[in-house]
């Protein structure tokens, strides 16, 4: 069994990665493209120096392509620490924010993936939180939004979506997970907690049962002028902010992750092609969680850092 942590690094200056093309619906392209791009970048950055470097560099590069054609060995651009495989390796010396912590609003959105174990969610929460805190060098988070699997808020008519939503997800599991988040809140590690895609009924049931109420409910609606009025009303009366987002719920399906790490044209070349192949790691790949983090400089209205970590497990077949 191998634990894998994937990361994008800061994508806010990543150009096209962070720009949603006109007319494209919400998708996980930002995550998948950013991961892929970060893998390629790491492979370039950690590529072996051109051999025979006493010659004219330009000449050598012509005959010795380093830009993506010849991959460095997996060891060179990934790292194994405490039996976790980091893809790519993370240069923690570059971690941190530019200004005082007080200037930032730091938001995390933690996606619990449908492929993962519900029992281990507390571990996922801690793992994700630790990684982000290390990356941003911060001690606490301003807003942590939990995105549970199997819930969506979709449909041409938002009324309809609100109704369907009431039967989605798994209340018991969500409430159990919430308790772990509440403890982070109580420890002062997170100032505000939030949930995503909760419709009116689901939200009402939820707040009836939890200790710490969500401060935020993130919803994705195409025409955001038509939020179902009952939801608006409930949110208003209970002091829950309705925020927008453009993420999709199943943000990292296992097929997608396998493709990202496989030997295909755009893969990272880490996984073996099949159980008989010798060209990489063997086993079943199970995506567990994804965390998106954003560091927003309040007084400037500027996003300084945004990125993703994803956790997965490779289980022997």
């Amino acid at each position, binding site marked *: 069994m191998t634990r894998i942590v994937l990361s994008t690094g800061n994508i806010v200056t990543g150009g096209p990665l962070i720009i949603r093309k006109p007319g494209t619906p919400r998708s996980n392209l930002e995550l998948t493209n950013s991961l892929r791009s970060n893998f390629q970048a790491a492979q370039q950055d950690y590529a072996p120096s051109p051999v025979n470097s006493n010659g004219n560099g330009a000449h050598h590069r012509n005959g010795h392509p380093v830009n993506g054609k010849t991959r460095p060995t997996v060891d060179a651009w990934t790292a194994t620490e405490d039996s976790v495989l980091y893809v790519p390796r993370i240069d923690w010396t570059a971690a941190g924010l530019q200004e005082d912590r007080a200037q930032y609003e730091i938001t995390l959105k933690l996606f619990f993936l449908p492929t993962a174990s519900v029992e281990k969610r507390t571990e996922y929460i801690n793992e994700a939180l630790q990684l982000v805190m290390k990356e941003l060098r911060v001690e606490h988070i301003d807003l942590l939004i939990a995105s549970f699997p199997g819930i969506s808020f979709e449909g041409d008519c938002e009324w309809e979506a609100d109704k369907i939503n009431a039967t989605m997800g798994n209340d018991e599991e969500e409430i159990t997970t919430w308790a772990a988040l509440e403890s982070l809140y109580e420890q002062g590690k997170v100032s505000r907690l939030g949930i995503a895609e909760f419709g009116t009924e689901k939200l009402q049931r939820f707040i009836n049962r939890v200790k710490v109420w969500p401060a935020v409910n993130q919803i994705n609606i195409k025409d955001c002028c038509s939020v179902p009025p009952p939801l608006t009303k409930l949110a208003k009366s209970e002091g829950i902010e309705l925020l927008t987002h453009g993420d999709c719920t199943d943000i990292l399906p296992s097929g997608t992750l396998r493709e990202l790490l496989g030997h295909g044209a755009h893969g990272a070349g880490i996984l073996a092609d099949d159980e008989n192949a010798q060209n990489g790691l063997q086993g079943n790949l199970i995506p567990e969680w994804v965390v998106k983090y954003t560091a927003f400089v309040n007084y400037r209205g500027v*996003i300084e850092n945004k990125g993703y970590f994803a956790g997965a497990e490779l289980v022997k077949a």
Partner: protein
Amino acid sequence: MGLLALGTALDWPDAQKRAQQVREWGIKQLLEIWNKAKHKERDAMLWGDEVEYIVVRYSEAAPSVLLSLRQADILSALAADEELSAKGGGVPDLQDVKVQNANPLPVFHPEFGRFMLEATPGKPWGSNVKELLDVESDMKTRRKIAKEHMESEEYPLTLTTFPRLGVPGVFTDPYYPPSGSKLRSQFVPDEIANPHIRFPTLAANIRWRRGRKVQVNVPIFHDEKTPNPWKDPTVNYDLHNWPEDDDVRNGAAPDNFIHMDAMAFGMGSCCLQITLQAKNILEGRKMYDQLSPLGPILLALTAATPIYKGFLADTDVRWNQISRAVDDRTPEELGEKPLKENQRHIPKSRYASNSTYISTDPRLRPEYFDPNLVIDESIKAELIMGGMDDLLATHFAHLFIRDPIVIFNEDLEQLDLSKTDHFENLQSTNWQHMRFKPPPAGSDIGWRVEFRPMEIQITDFENAAFSVFMVLISRAILSFDLNFYIPIAKVDENMETAHARDAVLGEKFYFRKNPFPNRAPRSAAASNTNSPTSSRPATPVSPVEDEYTLMTIDEVINGSKSEEHDFPGLISIVESYLDAVNVDVQTRCELSTYLDLIRKRASGELWTAAKWIRNFVAKHPAYKRNSVVDDEVTKGLVSAVINIGEREQASKGWKGLDVPDLEKFLGQFRGGCGSNGVKRTADKIN
């Protein structure tokens, strides 16, 4: 601008003698500010908008609409309103306005034209995305307050120009005859300008320095029955009041051009300006550079000026007219005569598109600079001696090639380094499309950048939309570290292109294909064997010409699907910024109506004000297809604009309003043809 300074304004011959002194003192003051503020850090992102109005006198009974010259009375009435000043509003030029509450009422300012008014929010806007929703309602409040302090037949309109400014006969109330001693205009009286000594002196000294009247010629729009060649029928070739009356006899009024001859034809135009505070000088310098290439795009997109002096023009925007209306260059500086009295040829008017880039961004390539940049070498040397870096010194040494136009004798007695009056004298009479503004003396305000090219829009909804858009794009530029650099010469060309009739749909503009930063390689700081290789070749530098291409405004705003490049469009960039920050549903919804307006104006789905006005004129029964916009047509247009404004004030939408093509101009926005009853933040009026 604080209280308008009073004093003895020097006539040009005297002013000219003291010009060098003002420049020298101005430079000393600049170095003082620079030294004090160069390390100023962490200033909050505050911003402000400025809305300018013309004031018309309109009644259903009167056959013609007139410009009201009661600016001073209106401002006095505003200043005398105790409730307004108690709530933080008022007229800073006439009274001490103190911001004492959290949401102060707006403040009003005089402008060059005596028929103009400017209004700004009572305090700057902050960086919170939510605050962007207050802009529109604040603009509506400004208009409401302005109207309340006018006579019942007076209206504040956000039209860039008054269509009948300068026509023969009566177009102002009260009437004054033209051909006064200050402007010496055939068409407008001296009383058209704000009577404060600064303004007539500005106009007179520009003319005096130039050696003739300013020459504002706009090509006529040739309609079916417009003669060709067309000779401006309002030009009087037999006037002999002033030596400058010879100008038209010497060819100042060529065929096929609407001829205008006074500063008021330019500086009497209304603009929509945005000022953004930067966190420090470096961020300010970056914003100055990065917003600069957007100038011509936003000019074309806000086009609203198709009529001059009672004629349809063949251009859609005000910019060049203002440029010419304040062009104080002598024939020598213009290159019409060999240099004798003057020091140098000067390729641009004081009012023109930017000539400098000033950022310390390593992506600023030497190829982008203006090859024709004119600077004062001795001033640059002095600034560098004073510790300023080359780029910024070059910028100010460029601004300081100009003479100060209005000099008050009293200010020349002693240099006061705690003030910035001499610096501002030059700085604020360099009207480029961006302005880089150092912190004012004796305040906590930071380095700021002003974005100046936009035309004022007819409704507050549109003005809010464009203001908000500029703020959002500035945040996206800083967040995503975008790069819009193209050579300054191409920005200049774009500025000219933006003038064409319907440039927004018919023209292409130079724009950078890839606005994104290159990936920075991982730091090579780690010293273990797995540290990234430092021998990675630097990204090869391609020729500058490959970086940009011609794009339509639609491509720039909405994205391109060309094979050559995939520029994502400014709207996508702004939306991606909004996607990445925590925005509540209502805010996002309301912001998307602003983005939709801009999207639709760029794609042509909705018309610019210029196009709507043109079509209004063309369809008016009194229009004779001869390019003439007479009193009757103007009255119809003003009446339509007043009606639109009243509906907007009442948040009633435009349903049932008998105004041609309104749905093509404003679409379904703000209630459109049938209000859905949703109350928006923007509907609130204080």
